[in-house]
């Protein structure tokens, strides 16, 4: 398969959709409300383990387990928000990054093993999901892009959820609720002085974005059919930030475009490098270096982005610069 097709497949594939879902949540937090959430991966973790523990440990039906994922993400948002959202913005940032990492360590701890499976995680989680697959077996695709029936079903559901999330956030943000949320991003004291309970709005936003992260985690668990805690490293959060800023924060389609494009570029980069290495065109690079080079590539892409297009691909430059006094 050629590089372009593989990259395109990744860009519209289920993993990209999972990242889009989590990025839509992060956009709610950062793009609209101005909340600095550096622990979106933590919401994905509790979401994934909602399915992992629900199905893997207690043998619940998948649909109940997804409800458990949503509940876990909402509870986590409340636990994070109640102590920090009355304080200055930095405290949420510190708390989210710490709690997300602490949650990973907690879920992988030996004493948690009866519940979470410890470092081994949980397996065979998605049978209920694929049993419900309405697509007959076979290959689905156009223009050389090609997916199995199960993948097609998964993509339909995940992108469907993305659609629902976009519809929900867009209609919220075009309402008086959204106006207050954006006001809080600009200056929460001003909004408070006008009689709005800023704390309640920030909590609502944190819960909504966190639940979207949780659903993304649940879909990740379903996609892989198994989960381990070490998939939820802090890098995931930073990839999500890179994706959101690449697409353009505070735009409905920013968090859709960003992850798709970044996954496209990452895959294209990986594949080109791999093929070059395989053809011995780059004798100084070993196949195992590709992962490290990929990180360097993301860093470079971010630097280029910040220099040439700080508002992201579809951000509003005018809006971006208005705060520079």
């Amino acid at each position: 398969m050629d590089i372009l097709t593989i990259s395109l497949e990744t860009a519209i594939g289920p993993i990209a959709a999972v990242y889009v879902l989590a990025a839509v949540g992060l956009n709610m937090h950062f793009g609209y409300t101005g909340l600095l959430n550096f622990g979106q991966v933590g919401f994905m973790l509790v979401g994934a383990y909602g399915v992992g523990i629900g199905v893997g440990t207690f043998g619940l039906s998948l649909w109940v387990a997804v409800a458990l994922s949503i509940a876990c993400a909402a509870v986590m948002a409340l636990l994070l928000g109640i102590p920090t959202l009355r304080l200055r913005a930095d405290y949420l940032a510190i708390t989210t990054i710490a709690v997300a990492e602490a949650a990973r360590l907690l879920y992988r701890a030996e004493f948690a093993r009866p519940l979470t499976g410890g470092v081994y995680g949980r397996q065979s989680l998605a049978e209920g999901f694929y049993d419900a697959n309405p697509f007959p077996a076979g290959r689905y695709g156009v223009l050389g892009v090609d997916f199995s029936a199960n993948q097609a079903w998964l993509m339909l559901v995940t992108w469907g959820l993305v659609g629902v999330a976009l519809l929900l956030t867009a209609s919220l943000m075009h309402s008086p609720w959204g106006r207050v949320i954006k006001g809080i991003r600009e200056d929460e004291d001003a909004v408070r002085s006008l009689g709005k309970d800023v704390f309640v709005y920030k909590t609502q936003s944190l819960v909504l974005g966190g639940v979207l992260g949780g659903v993304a985690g649940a879909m990740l668990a379903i996609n892989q059919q198994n989960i381990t805690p070490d998939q939820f490293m802090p890098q995931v959060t930073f990839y999500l930030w890179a994706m959101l800023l690449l697409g353009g924060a505070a735009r409905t389609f920013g968090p859709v475009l960003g992850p798709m494009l970044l996954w496209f570029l990452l895959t294209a980069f990986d594949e080109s490098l791999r093929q070059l290495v395989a053809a011995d065109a780059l004798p100084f690079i070993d196949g195992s270096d590709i992962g490290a080079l990929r990180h360097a590539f993301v860093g470079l892409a971010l630097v280029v982005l910040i220099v040439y297009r700080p508002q992201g691909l579809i951000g509003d430059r005018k809006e971006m610069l208005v705060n520079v006094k």
Partner: protein
Amino acid sequence: MSSESRTADAAVRDRMAGVEPAVGVAKPDPILKASGVRRSFGGLTAVDVEHLEVQRGTITALIGPNGAGKSTLFNLLTGFDRVDAGEWSFEGRRLNGLGGHRVARQGMVRTFQLTKALTRLTVLDNMLLAAPGQVGEGFFGSLVRPRWRHQEEANRERAMELLARFKLDAKKDDLAGSLSGGQRKLLEMARSLMVNPSMVMLDEPMAGVNPALVQSLLGHITALRDEGMTVLFVEHDMDVIMGISDWIVVLAQGGVIAEGRPEDIRSNEQVVDAYLGAHHDEPGAGAPGAGEEA
């Protein structure tokens, strides 16, 4: 003082008739009453006001040298800071322990010394945000557009009227961040009126505003009073203060040292003393009171 301030003095006598120019004096119809309000930061007592009443329907100025506690008192009264002791009431309702948003909902709306325009919202959105009791402000209420569309229309009409009054109507679709400093002050004042307050608290409304706009701002403030609103404001510019105030409260080192009509204050020795050596206390030079930035 100019003739303008003398005509204002004449109006003063009507509004505050029969009130003794004494610290803590009772007013005939107080809208705001505060007793024993105290706040200290570490060892520094920033505010210690024994008794203060603000008469309804007047313009009351709060003056004092830098660090006198004016802005801290503002923050305390409006729920933006917590008192160590004391109690205060607005329209007869106790405000102790209420957060800033609750105080605003009671009808006492403040502005800020450093203007807080919501810069990446349009001028019109700044106004609409302030409208009270919106159905669409609730998380779930906002999802059902038909439930709030009519209210939004009515709010928009009212917002446009206010913007026209403050001559900002042509800017309604501009981002608030693109306005000049003076226009932001106007927007902030217009926005506070969207809340339907019975009292507005203006923290240095003239700071950093060019002289042409000062006149227009003054006109707006007196117009508010003439419509029956109560105005309490902090200001440094003595011409402004003497010109439009019905009553002046002088704060020094956290306590009220004098109150009275402009002519009482002008001749008050204590006030002159408090300002002596504080001559750098010119408009614009105003560093805030202790705890201001906290």
